């Protein structure tokens, strides 16, 4: 074991065989990361839009902080969520530690700043174009923010995708709060980390290939949707 051709061959046959363990890991990964993206999008888009059109004290500091949080280290997020959810922590009674919901929470926190910050920037750019017209129509505040989010809905796909990319690729947070328990909280990235250290390269490599393929496919789909929408709506 150990040579690349061998590992590749092993990976290909694993994928081709539709191995149940492999499929389970992939489905859990997708379930966790997509859930996190949904929550982070629902929270992040209004938050980003509000900061974009809002005029409040400390706005600049908020923008800088939000941008900085895009680079949150996953292990730190994992650690904080771990402390919150651990038996002695404030949310320990929920019994969520080492379950998929804990992983969703951690990833949501991780990618919320990414989606919110990218949305804030996009809405602010759109505001420059729309401001006079909207103010002329008497549109301001929340209505203006929501109108702008809807106007740039196709561009915001990119922000959501960036979040998805980050969520599906990170290993630190889910490792800490999920615990990488076989059949329960084992996802693609944690499996890759574990199997590589154990020397089971075919499984690690096959998951790596699936992960990259999925990310490329999602990005291609989003790109296609955006193109088609822009041709249709201008």
């Amino acid at each position, binding site marked *: 074991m150990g040579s690349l051709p061998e590992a590749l061959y092993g990976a290909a046959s694993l994928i081709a065989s539709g191995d149940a363990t492999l499929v389970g890991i992939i489905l859990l990964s997708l379930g966790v990361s997509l859930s996190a993206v949904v929550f982070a999008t629902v929270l992040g888009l209004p938050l980003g839009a509000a900061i974009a059109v809002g005029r409040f004290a400390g706005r600049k500091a908020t923008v800088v902080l939000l941008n900085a949080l895009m680079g949150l280290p996953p292990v730190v997020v994992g650690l904080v969520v771990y402390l919150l959810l651990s038996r002695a922590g404030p949310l320990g009674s929920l019994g969520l530690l080492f379950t998929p919901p804990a992983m969703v929470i951690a990833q949501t926190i991780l990618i919320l700043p990414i989606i919110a910050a990218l949305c804030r920037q996009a809405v602010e750019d759109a505001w420059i174009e*729309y401001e*006079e*017209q909207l103010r002329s*129509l*008497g549109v301001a505040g929340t*209505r203006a923010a929501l*109108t702008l989010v*809807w106007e740039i809905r196709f561009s915001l796909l990119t922000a959501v995708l960036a979040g998805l990319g980050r969520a599906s690729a990170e290993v630190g947070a889910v490792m800490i709060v999920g615990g990488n328990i076989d059949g329960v909280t084992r996802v693609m990235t944690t499996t890759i980390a574990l199997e590589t250290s154990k020397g089971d390269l075919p499984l690690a490599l096959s998951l790596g290939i699936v992960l990259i393929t999925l990310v490329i496919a999602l990005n291609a789909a989003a790109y296609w949707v955006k193109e088609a929408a822009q041709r249709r*709506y*201008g």
Partner: protein
Amino acid sequence: MSSAAQRILPLSLAEVCFGAGGRAILDRVSFELEAGPATIILGANGAGKSVLMRLMHGLIRPSSGAIRWSDADPERLRRKQAMVFQRPVMLRRSALANITYALGQARVPRSEREALAFEALESVGLPHLAHRPARVLSGGEQQRLALARAWALHPEVLLLDEPTASLDPAATREIETVIKAFDAAGTKIVMATHNLGQARRLGDEVIFLHAGRVIERAPIDRFFAQPAAAEAAAFIKGELPWK
């Protein structure tokens, strides 16, 4: 008079100044606008026309001086005056939805919006494009849609900031036809332009702006036949060959 019938004209500007970045853009501008004649704000690029339009519309505030409509109620003011910009900004939705959006913002009941919007589209000759996405319309069609959106509530005053400056001659003619129709329907037209031909075709009177100051105000025929101010005469002379 009931609140709905209350008129917002006349509009009076008293000693209005506007400066930005230490530069005076408008300098002690005073005049009054009454209902009736179509008023052309004429002047070269950089004379301060756009800033003046935005001040009247309430998008910006004067550095000093006063701008007073005869009705000060902000809600009625917004409904009774509308502005069309040089470059129309359309929302990413259908032409019809662009108008119903504006009507919704003006608190028109949902059940009445579509009929009003269709009527407005008809008034600019675009009913057949009602369900097309607004952003893929041509420049001229978008500007007519902008006029329809502004017209949908039959405002008392329509402010137009060089509405044809980025359009070709055919589209310009169509826009002018629409503006004339709105004028004939009793809406007060206030239009900024540097185009002398357009000023003559659409205006009843001219307010001539030069370097941020009102230099002359005159009925359209007299302004072109015998401009009183030297700057106005120079502008007419300089502009004519390219009108």
